[in-house]
């Protein structure tokens, strides 16, 4: 049984987040009306296909949205502190110390010219004074916790000398060094081999359980999320369309899109000759349909879907953005989509 976090401290609270990209020609809404709460020690899976806004949500929380993008609306509270009104210095402190991020490509955050040890030391020194010996001890300790063999030797290595999986471990180590409250992981295992991915998933899960770090794990892969997260938010075309505890949501999805995603996974439908498939493609951001954004691809769509749906509660801790949510009976993923 997945643990419930209702009583735990809320470390991060995102409310009605809206991130837009403004050019002279048009305004494109990349993230629209995204709200969630992240409790201490919780792993929230953010799932969606490309263009769903899942990555941009992570970047918005970190304040890493580059112009012409900007956060147009909504609040991001870190332990009750509004990051939208925090000073640049305070933001930098929070970013390094309390909220950390890991990216899909480790080389975006590792410097090719510095040794691993120097980069980890930089992370530790950035936010407080710390002695040389302690830096070394803590770096080695963190590498060891991520199952990196002979960590002392690795401190002298340069990123190009490490394999992809090792580099990603180093990135996670750097992010976790200051024991942040929140770790935002943006598809960190997508580019890795399955055996390496399985190792890293497990290491991150154990590490965060021990430190009490809450995680936002962004991924396109529902199976990865299923293995890791406590709670899931499914995004489509910039919006959260369904959210809930992972086991219940995967077992009985309420939103037609969630069910379609689940049934499109090749391994989910053994014995079915053709995969149930969605027609059409994810709408390009900037070209989203009016009303329910999934409407053009949805078999259940009717006139009621022409008005933009809102997130409504549908069970304990569950919400869905659909006027025709699925019931338990038709939520089974074995049947092909009508």
């Amino acid at each position, binding site marked *: 049984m997945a643990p419930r976090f209702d009583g735990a401290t809320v470390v991060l609270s995102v409310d009605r987040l809206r991130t837009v990209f403004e050019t002279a020609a048009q305004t494109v809404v990349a993230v629209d009306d995204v709200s969630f709460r992240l409790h201490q020690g919780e792993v929230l899976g953010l799932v969606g296909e490309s263009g769903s806004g899942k990555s941009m949500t992570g970047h918005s929380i970190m304040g890493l949205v580059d112009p012409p993008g900007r956060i147009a609306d909504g609040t991001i509270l870190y332990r009750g502190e509004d990051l939208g009104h925090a000073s640049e210095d305070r933001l930098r402190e929070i970013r390094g110390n309390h909220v950390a991020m890991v990216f899909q490509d480790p080389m975006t955050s590792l410097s090719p010219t510095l040794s691993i040890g120097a980069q980890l030391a930089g992370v530790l020194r950035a936010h407080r004074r710390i002695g040389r010996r302690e830096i070394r001890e803590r770096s080695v300790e963190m590498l060891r916790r991520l199952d990196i063999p002979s960590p002392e030797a690795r401190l002298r290595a340069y990123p190009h000398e490490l394999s992809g999986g090792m580099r990603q471990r180093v990135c996670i180590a750097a992010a976790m060094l200051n024991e942040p409250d929140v770790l935002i992981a943006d598809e960190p295992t997508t580019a890795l081999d399955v*055996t390496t991915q399985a190792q890293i998933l497990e290491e991150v899960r154990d590490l965060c359980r021990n430190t009490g770090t809450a995680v936002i794990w962004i991924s396109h892969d529902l199976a990865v999320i*299923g293995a890791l997260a406590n709670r899931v938010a499914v995004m489509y075309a910039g919006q959260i369309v369904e959210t809930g505890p992972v086991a219940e949501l995967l077992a009985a999805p309420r939103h037609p899109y969630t069910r379609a995603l689940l049934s499109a*996974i090749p391994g989910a439908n053994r014995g079915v000759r053709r995969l149930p498939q969605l027609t059409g493609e994810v709408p390009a951001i900037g070209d989203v349909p009016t009303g329910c954004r999934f409407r053009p691809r949805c078999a259940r769509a009717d006139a009621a879907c022409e008005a933009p749906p809102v997130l409504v509660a549908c069970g304990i801790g569950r919400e869905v953005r659909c006027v025709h949510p699925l019931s338990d009976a038709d939520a089974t993923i074995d049947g092909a989509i009508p």
Partner: protein
Amino acid sequence: MSPLLLLDEVGRDFGSPGALGSWLRRGLGHGERRIVRAVDEVTIAVGRQEVVGLVGESGCGKSTLGRIAAGLIAPSRGEVRVDGVAIAGLSAAVRRRSMLRVQMVFQSATASLNPRQTVREILLEPLRVHRLAPRAERDDRVADLMRRIGLHTGFLSRDPHQLSGGQCQRIGIARALTVAPDLVVCDEPVSALDVSIQAQILNLFQDLQESLKLSYLFISHDLSVVERVSDRVAVMYLGRIVEEAPVASLFGRPSHPYTVALLAAAPRLGAQRRVAAVVKGERPSPYNPPAGCHFHPRCPRAVELCRRVAPERREVAPGHWSACHLA
């Protein structure tokens, strides 16, 4: 009857520049290069209308093997036979012609289309170059291909950058079909696509296989994808095929410890919070593979023999081959 495609004991090294090349390199002060054995004496056959899946992690040589099969890379050792005829023995013109029967679909759908050509140019070019259809019929042939891959003919005038990843992959498939191949080598054709698009393309592959009576050599790192499309599956590790079996047998009764580890590591729905059975450690460098069985340093069952002797392929069940001393 000989299989449609037979790779007979093929091997491929990279980094060996040949006699003249190595003389030149030395003369110009480059020194010797390190040699990596990307494919290490592999035998695999694809029959008519058969789908053979090839699974493995990055760097295991599966893409190199696919390119050898498609005639893009010449093997350093061994033979490629199409319908029993050794390709290496043919004259250049005949070889080019017979290798048209083996086409390829690539991983990066966008990069596999020439950005300077429109979709129409991409699909017409093979017909023109090989004079495959009378001039008047070429447009019909292209329109027919577009119908088969499920795209409107309005896409013909587009540039590749105006297409989505899924649409690009459809065009890539159509291009491979222009020359009416018997075998299509699919190198990770869906791994760069979104889940919902992945399902569409996988279904397309299945439909085309049936309607055009195609064979596939289907390369993927994703076990569940391979399981869906394949009749037979081969698992590669560090340049060698470690296990080969009919799909049900391989997924139901995996024999090689590496296959077992791969299956355990793949995240699957409904298998949440499973107990870890993942292999430890990193894949060794292909420049310096371990002696004996390549998998022994990571293998939970390795014994002394595995460290010294590379295991031969053995038939552990009818049609089920495994290269493990303990199988």
